[in-house]
């Protein structure tokens, strides 16, 4: 058991320490950096989805006003490593997807760069491409060995109730409001990059390897980051292209922001999924078998597997279980992390299937879930460190007013609107990775400087880490001077997997404890101590996960099929809350993205050319203010002494997990129409 921190600042409702800078526009994101004499990069993208570049005419671009350099695979600096094929930018003539970078112009102004990029003439030898995913393809390969516990077929044969259906989710694009951005300077044989990233220490080693530099000669800075939701958690081609241009123009800061359209080409996205779920239950509504069979796509140049079966492994008890995950390799851009990769689409399928199975068993969907709760992790047999799924379901039902719900679908009407309610469970594992470090230093001003190379992408890390440092040092928050977002600071893991507070917070606590051990409570100026996050050995004995339950009231217009999410209640069991104000925003933010996923998000790839047709925010809809009704996110008290010294479980992703299923389930209750293919567009309801 870990000694849980005594809390004073932790748990309070605290205004963000970076709030003033944000509401006044003073917070400087990557592109806002006031660099001297910048140059601007504009890329040229491939017009074919597969083939080779056979001709390049750059003369007109080079002759255009203000142009400093035109980079192509013929003249771009050679990279030291091309092992990561996604990052082998302008190294050869191969084209692996539509929209890939095939050239770039660097010029004195953004206008000149853009104009000259249009003057680069590229010829291609196109090859037939293949960008269409389906579960019937004969070339699917197994991303992992199919796995079975018990005997699923026998359980299904003997079951009182069997539910068997296929659910699909479309390609979804992260689209943080800040496009991926780099300001890169090559100076004295080193590279400095102001980057919009979820991890400065994630970017640094990658750039060092790709450019063949000592990591000490690469510095990455990201004090403010305009969202990421996973897309800025790994390094994409744009960062390397900015570095190449900077190397070609030593001393000159090169600014490169992806256009919104580029965000649909090179910034990663969520694979479409086809998921067959089979559930078997006995006459009492107890699950006897669970099967989850997933088909996804991956890019030809780099594999990424979205682990949709992960949540199914731990969510409900069932002695017989089978998981299968197969992939198609296509001529598409690289798929990558998007908020709750695996859990998010996986739980749309599982929690929709649970709703259907509850109905088939004649049980209330809350009761059905409660009945199938488990005290031990079904796969590993380990007990949970804490698990309060049932408490979330009960508390959510109470707050939402679920009791007395008439299960009959399609019978409630309010004027022209059909009204229904739905529920879904949420889960997200407690992810912890060792290796983050922090340094505490006592300054002349009587303040404690706390340094860690973490990133705040909107999560509230600036504030949460300040609170944690204050409690660990037993001083008020205003005595803490936090430094994050710079690879010159101690190593920190990526802001991903809802693990930031666990990993960085633990490092801060360790550093604070070391500081007090070494220097006591009356330190002298310059006293300093370092602490590191180590492997949490409790993981050997316990399964660790956060849980939640989401309830939605949905209206579907009887004439037009328009779907509105009138209200939602999310109740979460996520360990201790560090900052009540920012935590609520994070959970709500996940739920809002879940509404967006349920109602709008659908990237449409044109099979003829291989590009995303609706590649901007006018046509790829994300939830706007008027899409969001009354939303409530609350949590239940949960003390978990096994997860980390703060007792936190991670809250960045769980809000999106299950939200779309709750909405689809409510839409079914409203109309009697079961939509298994996201998003819930009007055509599904108009018959």
């Amino acid at each position, binding site marked *: 058991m870990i000694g849980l921190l005594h809390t004073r600042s932790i748990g309070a409702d605290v205004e963000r320490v970076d709030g003033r800078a944000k509401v006044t526009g003073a917070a400087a994101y990557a592109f806002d950096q006031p660099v001297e004499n910048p140059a601007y990069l504009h890329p040229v993208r491939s017009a074919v989805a597969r083939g080779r570049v056979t001709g390049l005419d750059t003369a007109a671009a080079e002759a255009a006003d203000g142009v400093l350099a035109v980079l192509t695979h013929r003249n771009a600096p050679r990279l030291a490593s091309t092992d990561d094929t996604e990052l082998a930018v302008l190294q050869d003539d191969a084209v692996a997807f539509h929209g890939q970078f095939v050239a770039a112009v660097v010029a004195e102004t953004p206008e000149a760069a853009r104009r000259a990029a249009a003057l680069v003439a590229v010829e291609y030898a196109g090859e037939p491409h293949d960008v269409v995913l389906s579960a019937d393809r004969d070339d699917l390969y197994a991303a992992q060995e199919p796995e079975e516990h018990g005997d699923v077929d026998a359980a299904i044969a003997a079951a009182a109730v069997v539910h068997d259906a296929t659910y699909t989710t479309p390609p979804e694009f992260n689209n943080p409001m800040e496009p991926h951005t780099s300001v890169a300077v090559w100076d004295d044989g080193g590279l400095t990059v102001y980057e919009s990233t979820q991890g400065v220490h994630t970017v640094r080693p990658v750039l060092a390897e790709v450019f063949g530099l000592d990591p000490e000669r690469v510095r990455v800075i990201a004090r403010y980051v305009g969202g990421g939701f996973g897309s800025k958690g790994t390094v994409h081609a744009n960062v390397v292209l900015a570095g190449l241009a900077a190397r070609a123009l030593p001393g000159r800061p090169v600014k490169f922001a992806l256009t919104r359209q580029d965000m649909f080409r090179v910034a990663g996205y969520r694979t479409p999924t086809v998921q067959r779920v089979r559930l078997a239950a006995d006459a009492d509504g107890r699950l006897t078998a669970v099967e989850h069979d997933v088909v996804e796509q991956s890019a030809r140049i780099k594999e990424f597997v979205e682990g949709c079966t992960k949540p199914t492994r731990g969510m409900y008890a069932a002695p017989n279980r089978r998981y299968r995950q197969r992939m198609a390799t296509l001529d598409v851009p690289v798929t990558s992390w998007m908020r709750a990769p695996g859990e998010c689409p996986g739980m749309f399928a599982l929690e929709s299937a649970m709703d259907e199975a509850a109905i088939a068993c004649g049980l209330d969907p809350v009761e059905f879930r409660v009945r199938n709760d488990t005290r031990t992790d079904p796969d590993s047999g380990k007990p949970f460190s804490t698990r309060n799924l049932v408490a979330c379901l009960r508390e959510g039902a109470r707050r939402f007013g679920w009791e007395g719900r008439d299960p009959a679908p399609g019978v409630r009407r309010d004027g022209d609107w059909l009204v229904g309610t739905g529920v879904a469970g949420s889960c997200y594992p407690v992810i912890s990775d060792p290796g983050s470090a922090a340094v505490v230093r006592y300054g002349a001003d009587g303040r404690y400087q706390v340094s860690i190379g973490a990133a705040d992408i909107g999560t509230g890390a600036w504030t949460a880490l300040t609170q944690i440092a204050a409690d660990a040092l037993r001083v008020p928050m205003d005595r803490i001077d936090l430094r994050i977002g710079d690879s010159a600071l101690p190593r920190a893991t990526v802001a991903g997997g809802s693990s930031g507070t666990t990993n960085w917070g633990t490092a801060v606590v360790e550093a604070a404890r070391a500081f007090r051990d070494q220097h006591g409570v009356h330190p002298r100026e310059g006293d300093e101590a370092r602490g590191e996050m180590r492997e949490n050995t409790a993981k050997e004995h316990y399964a660790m996960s956060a849980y939640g339950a989401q309830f939605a009231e949905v209206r579907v217009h009887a004439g037009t099929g328009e779907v509105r999410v009138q209200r939602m209640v999310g109740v979460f069991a996520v360990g201790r809350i560090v900052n009540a104000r920012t935590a609520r925003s994070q959970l709500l933010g996940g739920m809002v993205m879940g509404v967006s996923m349920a109602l709008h998000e659908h990237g449409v790839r044109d099979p003829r050319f291989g590009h995303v047709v609706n590649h901007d925010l006018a046509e790829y809809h994300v*939830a706007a203010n008027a899409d969001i009704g009354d939303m409530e996110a609350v949590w239940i008290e949960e003390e978990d002494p096994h997860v980390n010294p703060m007792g936190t479980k991670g809250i960045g992703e769980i809000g999106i997990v299950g939200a779309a299923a709750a909405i689809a389930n409510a839409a079914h209750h409203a109309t009697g129409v079961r939509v298994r293919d996201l998003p819930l567009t009007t055509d599904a309801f108009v018959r």
Partner: protein
Amino acid sequence: MEVDITLRVDGEDRPLRVDTRTTLLDALRERLGVTAPKKGCDHGQCGSCTVLVNGRRATSCLTFAVAHEDDEVTTAAGLADGDRLHPVQQAFLDHDGYQCGFCTPGQICSAVGMLDELKKGWPSHATADLTGPVDADDDEIRERMSGNLCRCGAYAGIVAAIREAAR
């Protein structure tokens, strides 16, 4: 082609020479170093670049700088009165109407402009009675703020903040 113009930005005269292709947003950000308005799409689809032009909200990516000679441009950086935040800014802090903060300067300018539109009685799609004064109820706020996307999904806080600032 380049033209000499003067923009009045956050109360200060800012003479500059601009390429006629330069948007107001790029002139502010890349030429004048005024980086409060952000570029989220460059196509008028997200609202991150919202500023007030002579008091009315405008997406600065959708208009050329050269068209704004002598116009009064107010960004989120120009709303505070010294150290005293504008009431809308303070309400955003109090209600946590933001997370990453990237859409926030645009949201705040949009809210300030929108509250003025409400005061003038301009109706919106959500207004039931087109003849009387318009209330700043939640549906009005949601409708009028829907040109400002927030991918962090801070809408609940944004609506609460504007509701309070409207009082």
